């Protein structure tokens, strides 16, 4: 190694302090000397930009919610009138909280199932080598190529007991949570499988090895070590699944008859009152008339559980692994 080669590059220190420099130069100079400030500035600009662009429509939503529906004409940046009562009306017109509760239950149930099953599959695809891996993965992926409508008719027959195999007719699942959770599971699982496979695949073998030596089975190692270490990925898969189900409309609309139980307590006892959140929201829509303020207020209310979930899940990520101590 010749000592000369490093020199052309270490020029920064050599630069002489010239006397004539205008402001811009000085600024650039400072920026170069202390790029931290520039990054910080860039960072704040970017953060502010993202905040504004993502939050503005929500602000607009709030404006809509606060504007009485009859004054919706030409709402500007400020609500046209001030009618916080919309948030109360939302619950008076419909037992909206029950729709929310229904959706929460469906979403949580589906998320748990998806995470469980997709974890196993993600582990397999992410960490194991076996013949048929690529075709199987592509097969799983291919399911998401199809529009949901492509699944509907057969599933509807299936869940209405119309499919008879060996003299046994398929279970009557229509109007039960299963009629939604099963399709959701199937439709949202490929994404989770891919996410989890990616993250599980990145966990160093050494940690799984250590767990197995300590006496876990491979599955035990998956749930005790690999999954916690992939907390960001798992949380992401969970949040994405949860939100997708929470807002799903197509199947939840066609697999329920739109009834809801009269009370929250009724959810537990009822087999067949499973109308979800979105169905609630569109109930504020008349045949010709849309109660934009109620829809807006309802969606703000409906988004709250998700916001809470996001906070919680992100906390989990943070506590899980912030410092990225993934290193063996």
């Amino acid at each position, binding site marked *: 190694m010749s000592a000369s080669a490093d020199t052309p590059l270490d020029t920064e220190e050599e630069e002489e302090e010239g006397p004539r420099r205008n402001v811009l130069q000085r600024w650039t100079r400072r920026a170069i000397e202390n790029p931290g400030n520039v990054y910080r500035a860039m960072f704040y600009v970017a953060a502010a930009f*993202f905040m504004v662009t993502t939050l503005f429509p929500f602000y607009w939503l709030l404006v809509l919610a606060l504007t009485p529906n009859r004054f919706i004409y030409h709402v500007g940046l400020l609500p046209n009138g001030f009618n916080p009562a919309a948030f109360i009306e939302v619950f008076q017109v419909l037992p909206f909280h029950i729709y929310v509760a229904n959706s929460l239950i469906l979403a949580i149930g589906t998320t748990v199932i998806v995470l469980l099953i997709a974890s196993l599959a993600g582990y397999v695809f992410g960490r194991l080598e076996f013949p048929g891996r690529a075709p199987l993965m592509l097969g799983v992926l291919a399911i998401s190529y*199809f*529009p949901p*409508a492509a699944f509907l008719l057969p599933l509807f027959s299936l869940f209405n007991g119309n499919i008879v195999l060996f003299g046994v007719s398929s279970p009557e699942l229509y109007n039960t949570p299963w009629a939604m959770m099963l399709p959701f599971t*199937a439709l949202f699982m490929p994404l989770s499988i891919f996410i989890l496979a990616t993250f599980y695949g990145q966990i160093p073998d050494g940690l799984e090895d250590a767990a197995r030596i300590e*006496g876990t089975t491979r599955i035990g190692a998956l749930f005790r070590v690999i999954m916690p270490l992939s907390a960001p990925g798992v949380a*992401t898969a969970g949040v994405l699944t949860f939100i997708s189900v929470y807002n799903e409309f197509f199947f939840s609309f066609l697999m329920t008859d739109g009834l809801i139980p009269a009370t929250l307590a009724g959810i537990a006892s009822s087999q067949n009152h499973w109308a979800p959140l979105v169905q609630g929201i569109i109930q504020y829509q008349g045949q010709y008339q849309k109660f934009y303020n109620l829809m807006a207020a309802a969606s703000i209310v409906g988004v709250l559980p998700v916001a809470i979930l996001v906070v919680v899940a992100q906390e989990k990520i943070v506590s899980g692994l912030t410092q990225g101590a993934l290193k063996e």
Partner: protein
Amino acid sequence: MSTETDAPSDGVRQGSAGPLTLAARRVENLGEAGFAYLLLVPAIAILLIIAVWPLFETLKMSLHADALLTNNQVGEFVGLQNYRRLLTGELDPLLVRPFFDLSQPFQSALTVTLLFTVVSVFFETIIGLGQALVLDQDFRGRRWVRVAVILPWAVPIVIQGMIFYLLFQPQIGFLTAPLQSIGLFSSTPLSNSVDSFIIVTVADVWKTSAFMALIILAGLQSIDRQLYDVAKVAGASKWQQFKLITFPLVLPSIIVAMLFRTIAAMRVYGIIETVSSCSTVPSLSCMVVSSFSQHRYGSAATLAFVTAFIIALFVSVYIIKFADSGDL
């Protein structure tokens, strides 16, 4: 270590084991491939029943004629005729808009879909990556910025549609007039194909950048922070750290996110229907859904399969990339 304990002892375990442990042992003893298949059973089973079987039924439907006048879902067996008619354009008059017509690209399903996919996924990736990078920093109030960034993803499509619909509804929202005055939009953007296309794309980018951000963020959080230490000491600037460490290490996450976003973008439907209409911005899924609701199940099934096939072709780019990164 003292040996006096009578707690379960380690040691090579043999013989006397309950049936459960025996089963567990048998599982552990499976070869890599056997074990892999076993863990895939739940996922594959649910996918087979809830996804593959319906698709198979739908495939059969696509080989039958439409039946508008009977209680049957489909008419007589016609082989591949539906496909032939679709691909030769014979079916176009029956569709909302032509399947493929280069002379009016904004009103032909295939071109609209591809254009939408490329544009929206491009912006979503850029923005999602930017958001993820911001969220990956440590700063006060990060939790709330996170929630803010992710919140759009939690908005049901109905509401997302409502927001953008109203924003661009000249009598209500305030966005049309200025955009119109600078000549960007026509006076009726929501019934103008190009304008609506842009609005739908913006709405989609607004909502689903969060999806990207979430997955990429998880990828970022899984990066071993020590690697940055190494890079810093080696003299890497922030940009170089990003280019050489961050980017390659989150690339798998980005690919997964883009893959699924691309698939979803190619199936875009809900936001079109709620902001504008399938007539104005026809997508492939629009074709499927409208044929479906018009009771043309044979055509709808054909369209669904052709859509899936086109998606498969389009995403093979990712698949190849994925295979390169060793995950397939």
